[in-house]
């Protein structure tokens, strides 16, 4: 136990500069790229990057050899939406940086500046094969949730690799509730907010002020209102999705992705044409909200068939700080309901990376990609499987967490 703890501590402090040269040999390599799945593939990691992927790669001098023995070798999973690192314990009155109450700060809330890489959920999550996450705050004062960040689960001090990458916007039932309880008020308010942001700082300096946003939020929203950043929109119903598609058509410079989309399958062709990607929860099949009366288990399969870009993550309202590891189970259930395996696996790896604009360096096992690599003891989308090795930025991570320490302390055979 103590030895493990010491090892854990020393690895956690190690700097990425120590990245070693590693050759993973003879795995079932899921590249997520043009090479597809390589049955007896090798992956060479040099200086934190993928240096080569293919068959029979010669080990460079000094390389450490890891024999995969036919097991799955894949890119690490990317939790497309999480609150990981924003609290150690989310309830019980413990500090929780995921929730922003009051109206002083909403759009300006900045998840990257709240992320704590030292929370115990980070090792708990990464030892199940999740290496990256998109995190977002949840402001409750207005229709703007705040600015999300991209993080690595290395536990290192520098693990925020994308700051203010996207703006969370509520444009469904929740959005309506934030603006007087009606969509009839929500859309005009959204348009007014975009105008406030575009006209920042002039209208604020002139003393006119914002129509709906204060100066802080207007400044924060400005890049997104100009099409320079992604707006991640929470909505579920087919009707709301059609409205967003129409709004996008009228404002082609703005960039949108949808989080939720329980009824996206009903408007799949329009969505595919719009180019708006969707982050869906494949377990969402209950009419628990009026905005998702038509939720169904094969949403992912239908979106895939229609050519809609999508990723898989817990839906709005189910996002939490502790269970990002379950994205692989979510993807497995999409497979059980008709989604091809390759598409499901991509939806929790490459798909999120592409939606958040880092698909050129994360989410594939291809030359020059970031070396987030996981070796599994079975099919990674299968609930009984677990990683046997996890690399982030080319560094092998200890498969130790507070939970494994509790496990060892209370083991029945101890």
């Amino acid at each position, binding site marked *: 136990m103590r030895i493990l703890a010491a090892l854990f501590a020393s690895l956690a402090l190690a700097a990425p500069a120590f990245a070693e040269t590693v050759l993973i040999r003879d795995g079932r390599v899921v590249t997520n790229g043009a090479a597809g799945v390589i049955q007896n593939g090798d992956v060479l990691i040099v200086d934190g990057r993928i240096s080569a992927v293919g068959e029979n790669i010669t080990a460079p001098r000094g390389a450490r050899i890891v024999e995969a023995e036919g097991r799955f070798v894949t890119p690490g999973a990317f939790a497309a939406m999480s609150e990981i690192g924003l609290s*150690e*314990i*989310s*309830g*019980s009155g*413990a500090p929780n940086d995921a929730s922003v109450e009051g109206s002083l700060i909403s759009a300006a809330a900045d998840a990257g500046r709240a992320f704590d890489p030292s929370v*115990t*959920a980070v090792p*708990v999550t990464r030892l199940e094969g999740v290496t990256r996450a998109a995190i977002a705050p949840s402001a409750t004062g207005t229709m703007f949730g705040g600015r999300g960040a991209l993080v690595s689960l290395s536990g290192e001090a520098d693990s925020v690799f994308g700051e203010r990458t996207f703006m969370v916007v509520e444009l469904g039932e929740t959005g309506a509730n934030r603006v007087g309880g009606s969509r009839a008020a929500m859309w005009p308010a959204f348009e007014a907010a975009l105008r406030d942001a575009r006209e920042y700082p002039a209208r604020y300096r002139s003393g006119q002020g914002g129509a709906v946003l204060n100066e802080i939020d207007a400044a924060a929203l400005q890049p997104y209102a100009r099409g320079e950043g992604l707006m991640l929109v929470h909505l579920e119903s087919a009707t709301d999705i059609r409205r967003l598609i129409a709004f996008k058509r009228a404002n082609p410079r703005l960039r949108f992705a949808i989080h939720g989309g329980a009824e996206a399958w*009903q408007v799949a062709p329009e969505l595919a044409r719009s180019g708006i990607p969707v982050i869906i929860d494949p*377990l*969402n*099949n*209950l*009419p*628990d*909200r*009026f905005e998702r*009366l*038509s939720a*169904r*288990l*094969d949403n992912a399969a239908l979106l895939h068939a229609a050519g809609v870009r999508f990723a898989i993550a817990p839906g709005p309202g189910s996002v*939490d*700080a*502790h*269970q990002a*590891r*379950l994205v692989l*189970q979510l993807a*497995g*259930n999409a*497979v*059980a309901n008709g989604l091809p395996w390759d598409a499901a696996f991509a939806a929790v790896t490459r798909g999120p990376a592409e939606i958040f604009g880092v698909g050129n360096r994360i989410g594939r096992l291809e030359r020059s990609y970031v070396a987030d690599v996981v070796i599994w003891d079975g*099919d990674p*989308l*299968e*609930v*009984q*499987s*677990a990683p046997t090795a996890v690399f982030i930025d080319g560094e092998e991570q200890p498969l130790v967490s507070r*939970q*494994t320490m*509790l*496990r060892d302390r*209370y*083991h*029945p*055979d101890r």
Partner: protein
Amino acid sequence: MRLKIWIGLAAAACLAACATTAVETPDETPRREAFASTYEPAPSTPTLIRNATVLDGLGGEFANYDVLMRDGQIVSIGQGLAADGATVIDASGRFVTPGIIDAHSHLGVYPAPSIQATSDGNEVTQPNTAEVWAEHSVWPQDPGFGRAVAGGITTLHILPGSANLFGGRGVTLRPVLGARSVLEMKFPGAPQTMKMACGENPSRVYGGRNSSPATGMGNFAGYRQAFANAARYARRVAAAENGEGDPPDRDLEMETLAGVLNGDILLQWHCYRADEMALAIDVAHEFDFQISAFHHAVEAYKIADLLAEEEICAAMWADWWGFKLEAYDGIRENIPFVDAAEGSCAIVHSDSEVGIQRLNQEAGKALADGRRAGLEISRGQAWRWLSFNPARALGIEEETGSLQPGRRADVVIWSADPLTSYAVAERVFMDGALIYQRGQGQEHFSDFELGQTYREGAQ
């Protein structure tokens, strides 16, 4: 009017949980007991399932086995059974198990859609609401019941929420799709249960109102005083039955607590932390009652020996943790570690309208995590967590939960090993009747869902 009078009479004559005996009034034929089950099994034909891998719910796994059902019961399981006129289903390559029993669900009392009008699961008005019955909140139209059946559920236990020290009575149901009232769903003869809650929820809710309990010690004082009062009430009832004095005025709260004290009502106690479970056990010793199961029991692995010794089941999630302090010490091996103790009773529960649809996967995770920790666990044993053990906690293990001759024929045919991700329930039988068949247009939509929007092929 006549009906109301009758219900009043029946209820007055019945203290606590005597829910199964008919009440005879002097001048009439026997009438149905108030709130008694009116469940009727759906029509069934004799059915022989052949050549399956069978997990019997008791711990056994049998290759190339047959299961014969007739008149709603399991007739036999074994190799090469004679069809004897039964409908034959070839289940080669498939798995057959007892139907899953979810020991902890709020379907019906927190139904979909989730709005103010349907928030019927927590009588958050005072810390002791032992007098309320969850069954009186169950909305049979909850679309969640149909979704649960598609996940292999044939029995589910509906509990009040955990805001109160005493949340009220729980009820064990059959997921009867199209039931017109909860009475048509009640598991015949199943004991009633009572929900209690440890920990953060009651003290947060009532402490937040500047009333008791505001602390852990307030919680325990609340439990003990209530049981002390109930013991006095039970003594007066017993004395009156022996001709000593008048019975006390009916008190619905006391009736429930007295039912726990005399063993008619099975206690289901929401409790996360090991130390609180240990103290709860001492409350049970002080007032001489049995705890059937701790629910959630995130730290049960720390007291697996104590739970086994006290014959208390633990109903657990596979991996939920961290959402509050009392869930902080959750580990993935909780279920297998509890299971490892001699005489244990580990249960996989959902507490979720989503989780109830795939409890088999949760058991699969716990199985794999236990094996990785070095424990030897069979698939058969893992299925026990989903059927026999929850049946035991609910007092219905002589009725269902295992594939034994004479048990209710609650049977699921799975497309593959049901402890894995891609397996789906292909057919679900309840009391021998086929109530669900995947992809055969048998998905059930409740009245609520009917005609709302395009649903063809949805599930």
